[in-house]
């Protein structure tokens, strides 16, 4: 039976079908839905599914399960693998028992990320195999195969979809869900599981010795294949292979094609292809991983071949590819006419930009309003990763580097002897992810800064996943809810106050106290995410503008809520109003009132 599935759902389906016992992850676009699709099946198929507090925890939990002999998966976005890089690199030495798939979604073009690093480089760095699916069907099939490959080689396998695979949909064949699974039994083997230097050295040799076995295993998989036509060729990896095939069909040219879906690529197939062609274009997204491999191989098999790609400027190294870009590159190589696209520049110039923004009624906007009132625009506002980074237009986001870096960057700016006030902000989920060591570090090293935890009781940006502060697990079971306030105190902050950002005066007062406090202060601005509030049935009466009182001062408009417009000299509140009431408190002429 075929179903129309999102790439991430297809991967989740393969995980369930393969009989995985432990599935972990930390939310991150474009990978989040994988864990979410597995979670509802946790009790039916006895799968431990968890949102871990961060990617390092996620991978280590999955490693423990694999070492105990069962199949396990850790899911994260590309930058999450940086957080999990420590266990990942040494995991290659110890290897695995139960099949272990590390599923990492890359995000070319930074659709929803702070960088566009290429996870294939991590696989090469760690000397483990990597599978690069072109579409949801391949993602599903590769995920099933990854468990087998992992068990055959006793190595973790990196499954690396990209945004256009994870968030693509296709008709996908549904498979059978395995009935029997290995029973967990951790076998003690210190030479293998205890990475003392004396154990690590021989494991490193063994890992290097395994490289031939990896090549043999990947030599005949269906995702590496070629069609030999003319003596000009295209070699393309993952989704770039689909763009190339479509471009060739549109151009109707006689070009040979080699599609690659694995790293390391298959030497036999690649060398056979290189001998056949005189000129080749290597097409892949992000880093020239395949291209550099082809360059090296060509030295042996066809030194005279002309190789075009990123190194020659024919294929961009940043952003994502599409059929249009690939078509023009191939047309250029084959001396065909490139496609001409109508210039819409003039038409587009009249369009107002529509950047994503904080939702109507979002409490973060209110928190930042109060923060700016107290600290002023000259203060320094390091921030972090989450919806709240969208408040950059409010002037209260001065830095955003990586998960958890707000508090530490703020500390560094202070220790550099910057004299102005410093107030940083971090969301609740991010605080629990990697903010904790940063706060502990700030307390220990006596950083005189204010830390604001924007606590909306969810991981909002990635689709409202629970975290340890919410009292619920990934599968919806109740669990202990940790108190952010208690954590902040125990980590060493001596000023810790919780405030409701919808109460503007109280929040201003709270920030004022935090600012006046000498030493580390923590303000927890706590209010439900507006989207969660709506879903749980909380509804407030919307507000309206009483035109007679409105002076047209635009204070409410400048607040930036999408529910507030300005027309004919007056503010107007539109149907998006959620009734948070913050604008009514900001208005100095009492012109905003509840719509009865």
């Amino acid at each position, binding site marked *: 039976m*075929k*179903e*129309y599935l*999102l790439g991430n759902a297809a991967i989740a389906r393969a995980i369930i079908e393969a009989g995985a016992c432990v599935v972990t992850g930390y939310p991150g*676009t*474009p990978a989040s839905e994988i864990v979410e699709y597995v979670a509802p099946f946790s009790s039916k198929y006895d799968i431990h599914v968890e949102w871990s507090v961060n990617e390092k925890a996620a991978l280590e939990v999955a490693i423990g399960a694999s070492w105990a002999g069962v199949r396990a998966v850790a899911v994260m976005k590309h930058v999450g693998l940086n957080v999990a890089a420590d266990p990942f690199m040494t995991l290659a030495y110890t290897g695995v028992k139960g099949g272990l798939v590390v599923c990492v979604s890359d995000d070319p073009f930074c*659709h*929803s990320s702070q960088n566009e690093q290429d996870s294939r480089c991590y696989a090469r760095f760690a000397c483990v195999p990597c599978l690069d699916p072109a*579409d949801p069907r391949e993602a599903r099939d590769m995920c099933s195969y990854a468990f087998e490959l992992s068990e055959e080689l006793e190595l973790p396998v990196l499954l690396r979809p990209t945004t*256009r695979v994870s*968030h*693509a*949909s*296709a*008709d996908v064949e549904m498979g059978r869900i395995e009935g029997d699974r290995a029973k967990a039994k951790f076998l003690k083997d210190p030479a293998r599981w205890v990475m003392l230097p004396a154990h690590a050295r021989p494991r490193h040799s063994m890992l290097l010795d395994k490289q031939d076995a990896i090549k043999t295993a990947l030599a005949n998989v269906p995702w590496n294949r070629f069609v030999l036509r003319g003596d000009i060729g295209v070699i393309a990896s993952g*989704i770039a292979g*689909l*763009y190339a*095939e*479509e471009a060739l*069909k*549109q151009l*109707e040219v006689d070009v040979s094609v080699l599609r690659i879906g694995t790293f390391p690529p298959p030497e036999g197939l690649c060398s056979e292809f290189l001998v056949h062609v005189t000129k080749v274009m290597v097409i892949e997204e992000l880093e020239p991983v395949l291209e550099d491999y082809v360059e090296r191989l060509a030295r042996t098999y066809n030194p005279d071949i002309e190789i075009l790609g990123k190194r020659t400027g024919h294929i961009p190294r940043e952003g994502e590819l*599409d*059929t*249009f870009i690939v*078509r023009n590159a191939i047309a250029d190589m084959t001396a065909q006419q490139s*496609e001409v*696209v*109508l210039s*819409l520049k*003039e*038409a*587009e110039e*009249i*369009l*107002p*930009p*529509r*950047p*994503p*923004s*904080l*939702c109507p009624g979002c409490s973060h906007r209110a928190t930042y309003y109060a923060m700016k009132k107290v600290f002023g625009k000259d203060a320094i506002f390091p921030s972090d990763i989450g*919806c709240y980074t*969208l408040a950059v237009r409010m002037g209260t986001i001065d830095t955003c580097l990586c998960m958890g870096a707000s508090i530490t960057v703020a500390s560094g700016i202070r220790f550099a002897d910057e004299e102005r006030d410093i107030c940083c902000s971090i969301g609740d989920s991010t605080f629990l992810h990697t903010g904790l060591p940063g706060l502990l570090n700030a307390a220990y090293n006596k950083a005189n800064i204010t830390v604001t935890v924007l606590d909306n009781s969810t991981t909002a*940006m*990635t*689709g409202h996943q629970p975290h340890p502060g919410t009292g619920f697990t990934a599968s919806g079971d109740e669990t202990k809810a940790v108190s952010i306030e208690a954590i902040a105190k125990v980590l060493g902050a001596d000023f810790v106050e919780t405030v409701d950002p919808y109460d503007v005066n109280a929040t201003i007062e709270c920030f004022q106290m935090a600012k006046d406090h000498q030493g580390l202060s923590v303000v927890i601005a706590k209010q439900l995410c507006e989207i969660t509030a709506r879903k749980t049935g909380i509804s407030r009466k919307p507000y309206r503008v009483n035109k007679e009182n409105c002076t047209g001062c*635009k204070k409410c*408009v*400048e607040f*930036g809520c*999408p529910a*507030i*417009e*300005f027309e004919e000299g007056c503010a107007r509140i539109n149907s998006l109003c959620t009734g948070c009431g913050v604008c009514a408190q900001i208005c100095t002429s009492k012109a905003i009132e509840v719509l009865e």
Partner: protein
Amino acid sequence: MRTSICDIVVVGVGGQGVILLSNMIGKAAVKAGYSVRGAETHGMAQRGGSVVNHIRLGCEFGPMVPVGGADVLLAFEPAEALRHAHFLSRDGIVLVNINPILPTTVTTGKARYPALAEILTPLQGLCADIKSIDATELAFKAGNPRTMNVVMLGALSKFIPVREEELIKSLSDSVPAKFLEVNRRAFELGKREVEL
């Protein structure tokens, strides 16, 4: 040479139900026996930003409609129609909901929202036909303003090679039973709007 049977690009603003609607179309097309490819916008852009989804019927290639290849541009918002007009094929058509959603750049006075004619005129030169639809009003008429996307689905049903029954079936599978009636009315109103 064509590389799909029908290429559709659905555009709108985060929160208008672009993803939900695209999924209904994709599911119906799979039931109808097509090989289907789709691409969605998730994550940051969903927070009130510009959202683009692609659906390709009878296609074995990548999930994104190539620039200049869309047979139908289904736009839930006029400015978004023009913003994504580069996807249109010269033989393609535009189905556009004429009700603007003002971005914060406009509400805060930093940018101007153009008049409807300023948006539709340049579009006219780019494609075979434009159907302007007051979908927000029709959704009100159907009984719930949130069915605007289904009004647009009804209009779309006249221009894609998927039978109406398949789309309705997909709609019934996607919305709660108590909202089915209002959604069916919305579908019907959208369909009738382009029949006239």
